[in-house]
């Protein structure tokens, strides 16, 4: 069991990355490194009006937590947060936030990358495109490059 703070949320509303960082750093002096990652919705050259994120309530939170626990077991991180939005998201708006804190930078960098890589391949979310010209959009296909990114961390970590 890990004793570090792990915040996992799936929500429709935007997140406040500064507030999430503050919640992992306030009142402590052992944190020497904070890595944050935010994934934003792209317009794909203006063709995309919005992404619609569907998720599996309950499993989405549980699966992200399993990945975070695996990251906490592998690196000496002091805190982790992962927040993923669902619903319709406009180009330029944030979709996902990951925060990792540690005493030294390497653990926070690697844990944040690991968390994102496995979140993409294991957390039950699906993106549907809505086109700017009103055409019915399709479901986004999973990318082999995402599987490869997760595979670089080795076997059965998450």
């Amino acid at each position: 069991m890990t004793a570090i703070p792990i915040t996992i949320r799936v929500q429709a509303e935007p997140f406040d990355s500064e507030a999430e960082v503050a919640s992992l750093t306030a009142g402590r002096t052992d944190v020497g490194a904070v890595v944050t990652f935010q994934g934003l919705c792209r317009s794909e050259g203006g063709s995309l009006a919005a992404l619609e994120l569907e998720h599996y309530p309950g499993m989405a939170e549980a699966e992200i937590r399993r990945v975070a626990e695996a990251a906490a077991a592998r690196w000496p991180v002091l805190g982790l947060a992962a927040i993923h939005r669902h619903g319709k998201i406009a180009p330029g708006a944030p979709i996902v936030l990951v925060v990792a804190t540690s005493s030294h930078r390497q653990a926070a960098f690697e844990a944040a990358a690991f968390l994102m890589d496995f979140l993409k391949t294991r957390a039950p979310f699906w993106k549907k495109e809505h086109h700017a010209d009103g055409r019915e959009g399709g479901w986004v296909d999973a990318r082999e490059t995402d599987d490869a990114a997760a595979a670089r961390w080795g076997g059965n970590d998450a």
Partner: protein
Amino acid sequence: MRLLYFAWVRERIGKTEETVDLPAHVRTGADLLAWLKTRGEEYDHALERPDVIRLAMDQMHIRQDETIAEAREIALFPPMTGG
């Protein structure tokens, strides 16, 4: 058993969830997909490539060759595209 469908699997089958009584011969995830395919055109269309369908049993990922005998809830969905 409760079945849940997501993304294009949900759209093609035309429902978000249903409760089914499994025939005795359905033991694994692959058995479930093969049986569901026989339940109508919409299922056959949704599951036309069963190899790409992902399964979760009681909100944990499973492989298609794993047993589902003890499951309360099975979810069927395409490969994930979050993040």
